[in-house]
Each structure stands twice: as structure tokens, then as C-alpha cells.
């Protein structure tokens, strides 16, 4: 599992990369009330805004961590956005993507480095 400085996690499952936000990020955002997901099939470039998360406080963007194509989104979040608070690293995943250059993940932190990063 890899972690970005923007508090996203990436997990490689077979030939796709699953992306979500970390427990730390979910806690910082507070209660999440709305998640706007991208369309399946969207081609994204690293740092494109792909997801909007609205918490009770504010809207935040999630950026594409790598280049690739969105292959699946977690539709459950449309009706149950609180799943991100309940299980950020599991059922609260956001989208899956097919990486066009998997080596882009190499620069991201491993879990130990991320834990150190968030203190």
C-alpha cells in the first residue's frame, strides 16, 4: 500500500489500483456528507481533480495520484458517504483505476513513512 502527501492511499489489486483517503484525512475532514465521484472510463492525468468530498465543514478535492483510466467507482458512497468516516481504508474506497505508468507509484510513501509524515 502506498500513501500520498495529500492523504490518499493506493492499493494494487490484480491489475487495478484502488484509491481512497486515509483515516487521518477522514478524521480531519469530519463527518462526510457528500462524495462526487468521476465517471467510469474517464482518462485522468496525475493531479487532475477527480473526486469532490463535502464534509459538514467544507468541500475538498481529491487529485488523481497517477495517470490512467477510471475503471470503477464506489457507488455506495453516493447514498452512504459516511462509509468514508467509518472505514476509510476499506469499504470507503473511492475509485479504481488502470495505471498507464505504474512506476509513478514508486515515489509515494509506504505505511511507516506515512505514519511518520502525519506524526
Amino acid at each position, binding site marked *: 500500500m502506498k500513501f500520498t502527501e495529500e492523504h490518499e492511499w493506493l492499493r494494487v489489486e490484480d491489475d487495478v489500483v484502488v484509491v481512497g483517503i486515509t483515516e487521518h484525512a477522514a478524521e480531519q475532514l469530519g463527518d462526510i456528507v457528500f462524495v462526487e465521484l468521476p465517471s467510469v472510463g474517464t482518462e485522468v492525468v496525475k493531479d487532475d481533480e477527480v473526486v469532490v468530498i463535502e464534509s459538514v465543514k467544507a468541500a475538498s478535492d481529491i487529485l488523481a495520484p497517477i495517470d490512467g483510466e477510471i475503471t470503477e467507482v464506489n457507488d455506495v458512497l453516493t447514498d452512504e458517504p*459516511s462509509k468514508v468516516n467509518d472505514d476509510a481504508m476499506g469499504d470507503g474506497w473511492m475509485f479504481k483505476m488502470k495505471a498507464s505508468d505504474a512506476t509513478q507509484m514508486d515515489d509515494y510513501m509506504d505505511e511507516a513513512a506515512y505514519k511518520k509524515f502525519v506524526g
Partner: protein
Amino acid sequence: MSDLRVTPLNALHKELGAKMVPFAGYEMPVQYPLGVMKEHLHCRAEAGLFDVSHMGQVIIRAPGGYDAAATAFETLVPVNALGLGEGRQRYAMFTNDKGGIEDDLMIANRGDHMFVVVNAACKEADITRMTTGLPECEVTEITDRALLALQGPGAEAALEALVPGVASMTFMDVGVMASDWGELWISRSGYTGEDGYEISVPEDQSEALARALIALDAVEPIGLGARDSLRLEAGLCLYGHDIDSGTTPVEAALTWAIQKVRRNGGARAGGFPGADTILAQLDDGPTRRRVGLRPEGRAPMREGTELYAGAEGGDVIGHVTSGAFGPTLGGPMSMGYVTAGFADDGTTIYGDVRGKRLPATITALPFVPANFKR
């Protein structure tokens, strides 16, 4: 944050694990470990305790007693202060020469004097306004008392257990009660749409009273985050957002707070700042009006969202002044101003959310019915 002021309950908030934020010059709790959503729902189901000690408490005395103080006070507000019964409270607003709102406040008739509660961010200006505008009165800011709000359907039983007698008060009654925490100034009011009380307590007793309240099963401490979503569900204005010096009470749909006696044809019509503008708007209707909005879907339309009549093109017809997700409502809700022709309930308009025009329906306020004990 060293220049921030603190309330007498600051240490208690921190002990309870509150996340503290700067608000109106004070360090205040925005949420406790329960979280905004659960705090909100708890207040609607049982009872929530809010620290509102940052707000200003002011006593106004005149040599002629309450009537003289109220008569003078009517030169500052478009509200019937003189006709307010003893032991009763009423919503009011200070206006400016253009008819704009300088602050909203509560006034109470306490027999021989008037008691006023004003917003934290405005209190210095308000006190200057009252001191200079009411030369015949003695205007005293109360600085040795905290202010708590206990709100929710469980508030009556909770407070009655500690301060017997409060259950017999009805909405907008005020009273002075002896208690184990000194003399309490209690009003049956609040700003959540729920039944409840605001309690002015001697500063040195405030933490003990707060601890006694949250020790009760029904009562949880509630932060500013839930206070904001509760008041928005209740359709209540937040000063500096939904109302300000550029919005008039008529535009803000606060005409219910301007009693007949102060309107054209009334015995004490006008005589307050901006009367010409406000009275003309009462007769002719305003060109824009505050409305409630229910966006379709789940995406909130937040403060600043521009509003349009159609899904494409056209000029801006208004903007959102408060927007959030309503935990009790179970969906997004906003308040804002729209041009008069689009202000009717049921009208569909469109908000620009991140470059997309999303539909929203003009909806009667409040979003969640009030639960006052009248």
C-alpha cells in the same frame, strides 16, 4: 492565537476534548469528540449544551424605568420595545441609515430595566451605538457572567432537575432564579429551533453549572459546527452571513419582527435608523428577498454560490448566504437572496456548483419545524 479571548468554560471545553477554533475574536469549541453530525442529532433528540459566553450581555437602565429605556431604545430598532410585557423577551435588530442591519439581538423587559443580548462580533460597536444613542440611559456591559444555552426536547426536564420552576416558563419568558450556582438569569429561548433555555450564570459558577448539566444523561456538549447546522435547519439568520449592514429586515424576511405599531399607520411608526427605506419596502415589497433552497441530490450549495433562473445562460439572480448538509433534514439546504420574481415557494432555480448548474427548489423556512413551547 494569543490575541484570542477565552470564555470561563475554555478549560472545560479542552478537558472534554473539543476542537477549538477562532470565532468572533474568541477561542471556541467547533466540535467535541462526538462529531458535528451526532451532536446535531443529539440536540434534536435530547438536549445539547452550548457555550455562548462570547455573546454580549448588556443592561440598560433609565431614570424613568423600563418604559423610559424602551422608548429611548426604539430610536435604534424597528421593534416594539415599549409594548414588551414584563418578564418577556423579543427578537430585534439595530438598523443603519440605509435600512441595513447592524446586528440582531434579543431584548427583555426585566421590570425596571432592559436586558439585551448581542452577537460577539458586533458587541463593541453595539455598546458604542447604545451608549451614544441613548444618552438618557445607563448602558452597562455585563462582564462577570457566562451564558449557556441548553437546547432540545430534553432541555426542560434536564434544567428543571437542577433549577426547579423553569418548566413553567413558556417560549420567550425571562426570569431571575436562585440556584445552587448563584442567581441565574434564564430565558426560554435559543437559536436552534428547539425548545430550550439560555442561562446567564455568574462566571465563577459557570463551570460547575455546565458540569452539572452534562453529568445528566440527556445532555451532551455541542460545538459551533452543530450550532450552525441547527440554526440553518431552523431557518434562522446568522449575522455577517444571511444578514448584514447591506440587507434590510424586509429583504431578510424578518418583517415579523417589525410590529404594526412601528409601521406606517402605527402609533409609533418610524423613528428608527433607515425608517424611510424599511417602511417603503414594507408597503411596496423589496426587490430581493431571503429564501430557503433545497438543492436536488446531496451536494450542498455553500455560501457564495451564484444563483441563476435557468440551467444555461442568463444573469445572476442571487446568491447563497449559508449552505450546509442538514443532518435532521437528511439532505443539503441553503439560504440566500434572490430577485423578488423568483422568490415564490416551489420555484426551481439553479446554483453554480464548481462550474455546473444544479437545480434547487425555493422552499418555505424553516426546513425543520420548530419545537417551541408556546
